[in-house]
């Protein structure tokens, strides 16, 4: 078989080829409110810091993340920038954008980059472009997946199966917002701000405990057990499989409506007030649960604020903590790793105690 010439560095930001078919619409996902809410909140406020989705097989974990890609509104980038720099945020420019005098603006879809299993470190972080080096003897950096995911989402299916050194790399970059490359004589740093979304089935291998609380929100998905929901899941899936285009068309209005809500929520986010009462309730909740550090509280407040913005409210009420408490705190409880009593139940109990039943 003839080899196929690989993509050049300049093309690295654009996805290599168009997807074979439209993804399943986000709004057509049946149930799983906690998961869809967490993803929407991360889209409203990327600062929430990543979403971890754990759960049973076949519950639509990957479907939801891939659907999110199609839902998100387009973003403005400096045209031609390999890292998709935001023209409105000069502080975060990459080196080449900083030197430009004119920065033409282009609209591109928000990247949702799928980290395929078997990806090697050089493609994740970026490395010397072999082809350019071989052909012109030029030392050119070939951006990796982290560059492509800048300002978007990086999705890892089966995060529990990913090699540890890759996970460490991803978490470091996700936390610092910057990818530092020091290899093969290349020394470079570029912005890499992305929302890390991981999914996995705990039955297939456990997640390292250190990894858990690096995610902002963690949700559990379960197989629906009532007949009506299951019938609806199968019905929609079947309709989509048989005629993807028509199915997506029938959900277009719902998708557009959700997209508008996300856009509006993003614009409003900075104006949402966070009264002391909510801050205090959040602090009391975290103290009652004994979460380590302040990250739990910060995430809880951010998630509640994003939810308030999404629901069009002016301020974060104490009540707004309730729907996001389990996702923001459940995975941060200091727990005996062998304790199986769900952390969810503990969060629910604390919420009932502090916010009232």
């Amino acid at each position, binding site marked *: *078989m003839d*080899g*196929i010439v*690989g*993509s050049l560095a300049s093309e690295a930001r654009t*996805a*290599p080829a168009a997807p*074979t078919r439209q993804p399943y619409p986000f709004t057509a996902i049946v149930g799983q409110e906690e998961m869809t809410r967490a993803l929407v909140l991360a889209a409203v406020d990327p600062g929430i810091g990543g979403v971890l989705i754990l759960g*049973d*097989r*076949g*519950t*639509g974990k*990957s479907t939801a993340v*891939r659907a999110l890609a199609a839902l998100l509104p387009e973003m403005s980038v400096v045209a031609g920038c390999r890292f998709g720099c935001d023209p409105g945020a000069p502080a975060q420019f990459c080196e080449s954008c900083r030197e430009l005098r004119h920065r033409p603006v282009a609209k591109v879809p928000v990247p949702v980059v799928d980290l*395929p*299993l*078997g*990806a*090697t470190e*050089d*493609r994740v972080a970026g*490395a*010397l*472009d*072999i*082809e350019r*080096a*071989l*052909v012109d*003897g*030029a*030392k050119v950096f*070939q951006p*990796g997946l982290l560059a492509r995911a800048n300002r978007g989402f990086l999705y890892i*299916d*089966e995060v529990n*199966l990913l*090699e*540890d050194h890759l996970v460490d790399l991803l978490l470091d970059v996700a936390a610092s917002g910057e990818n530092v490359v020091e290899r*093969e004589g290349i020394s470079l740093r570029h912005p890499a701000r992305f929302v890390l979304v991981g999914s996995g089935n705990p039955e*297939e*291998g*456990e997640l*390292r405990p250190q990894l858990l609380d690096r995610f902002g929100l963690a949700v559990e998905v379960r*197989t629906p057990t009532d*007949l009506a929901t*299951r*019938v609806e*899941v*199968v*019905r929609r*899936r*079947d309709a989509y*499989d*048989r005629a993807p285009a028509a199915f997506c068309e029938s959900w277009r209005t719902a998708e557009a409506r959700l997209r508008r809500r996300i856009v509006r929520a993003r614009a409003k986010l900075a104006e949402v007030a966070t009264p002391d009462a909510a801050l205090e309730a959040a602090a009391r909740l975290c103290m009652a649960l004994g979460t380590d550090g302040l990250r739990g509280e910060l995430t809880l407040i951010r998630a509640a604020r994003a939810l308030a913005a999404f629901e069009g409210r002016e301020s974060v009420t104490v009540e707004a903590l309730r729907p996001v408490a389990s996702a923001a705190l459940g995975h941060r409880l200091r727990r*005996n*790793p*062998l304790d*199986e009593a769900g952390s969810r139940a503990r969060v629910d109990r604390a919420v009932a105690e502090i916010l009232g039943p």
Partner: protein
Amino acid sequence: MTEAAPSGGDAAMAAALLAVDPTGLGGAVLRAPHGAARDAWLARLRGLLPAGAPWRRLPPNAPDDRLIGGIDLAATLATGRLRLERGALPDADGGVVVIPMAERLTQAAAGRYAAVLDTAEVTLERDGATARWPASLAVVALDESAGEDERVPPSLTDRLALHLPLDPGSAMGPGPDESGVAAARAALGEVRASDEVLLALCEASLAFGIGSPRAPTLALRTARAAAALDGRRDVVEADVVLAARLVLAPRATSLPAAPEEAPPPPAEEPGDADGGPPKDGSDLSEIVVAAMRAALPAGLLATLASALRGRASAADGRSGAPVKDGQRGRVLGARPGPLRAGSRIALIETLRSAAPWQTIRRRASGDHARPVLIRAEDIRLRRHEARSGTTTLFAVDASGSSALHRLAEAKGAIELLLGDCYARRDRVALVAFRGTEASTLLPPTQAPARARRCLAAMPGGGATPLASAIDMARALADAERRQGRQPLLVLVTDARPNVARDGRTGREAGEADALSAAALLRAAGVSTLMVDTAPRPHAYGRALAGALGARYVPLPQADAAALSTVVAAARSA
């Protein structure tokens, strides 16, 4: 009718159904030993596929560059341009991939197949190259597992519609022919299924405890393919029954509660179709549930129990895991170094370090014949992590004397050690001994939570078959070592053996046998820690520890934290 294998007619039908809608059904799990029946089934399937459809056979341990693709070194070096080679998965686009010995697939490898089945494309991000290829295909996993420990990873089987046990003795019945399948394939898009069909399939999967929502979806597609094969435009009862039999019945994890029978139904007599519907089901639901009952083998509950046990070992991808994952997970990158016998070149890294100098070297040497000039200083070697995983084997004395003394305290100490194992990602196994012999409560697993559960449920009482326990630990340690892991034995006992290897009771014979078993274990070179739980450590305990070559920790002095330090020391020794 104790044989679970379907009639030859069902097998033939399954091949035809898969040929009608390969990508929709995802594929099949063929549970059969290597043999004529299996070959006949595969030949039938291949014959029914469209002419020219790719057919690839992939070993379960195929590396990523074969599976997904990677850099084509020969072509890259010859042309001096980056050349990619497609792996077998994109190569099989529109066809079928057959995996023999699928029970040896690792979780990671199964994950790659699962991603391809989900997205119908292959994404490559390796070796400095990026590519995306379409790959809609079906997977036929050949399950040759013998014991309970081996299972095809559930993440793969969940996505394959047909689960087919093949009877190696029976011949395959006649089935639809090529033209019939081709016609059905063309008509598939027009086959309608009523809401009643949908409801019946969902209800049946709920009733039989099938969790994954993929099951009814796959069953629905199977029913559609069956209708198309029969030349109909509507799914009728017969199609639904066939789909339930081929797709849902093999996935059953529980029997529906039959209204007029005792609540925990014993092994149902197959053919007993009187069990009513679980809920206010429609007529079709009743029929489907009855058909599934009939399709279930007589020993369902037994297989069920083994499936649940199988989950324990499948969860850590045990079968075949070490070789491949050892290569994959522990490669720490590359480093420059001299090429010696036995060292492995990191080809891509070598190429990469040579690349920037090509122009200069060419100018200097005037060599234009060779496309790439590589010098010794470019050579990069693969670096592997030296430490292999550890498996901590706990052998716990649950005999009467021990229970009397401090079984509860010992359990506490073990729990602490389990927490440690969890943090280190060690595997753990649990052997308990009491009465006449030792038994493996938990085969090696990476989920210490399960060990804790086993431990908590472990009853105490009876005699002390210490020799049998040490023998069993040695067998487990051997097995772990064969898989490339370092076994560490933690023996928790009060050292009062009173059962000999042959099951006779008696203090003397028990003690002598335990000592000889200990010597064998020591000869096998297993590092051992012995926790003596006797209220007052006695001479025999020390003697036993000596025979084992073990670190000896009498529990009276060992508070839990000290114990964990000792284990850590034993591990690094």
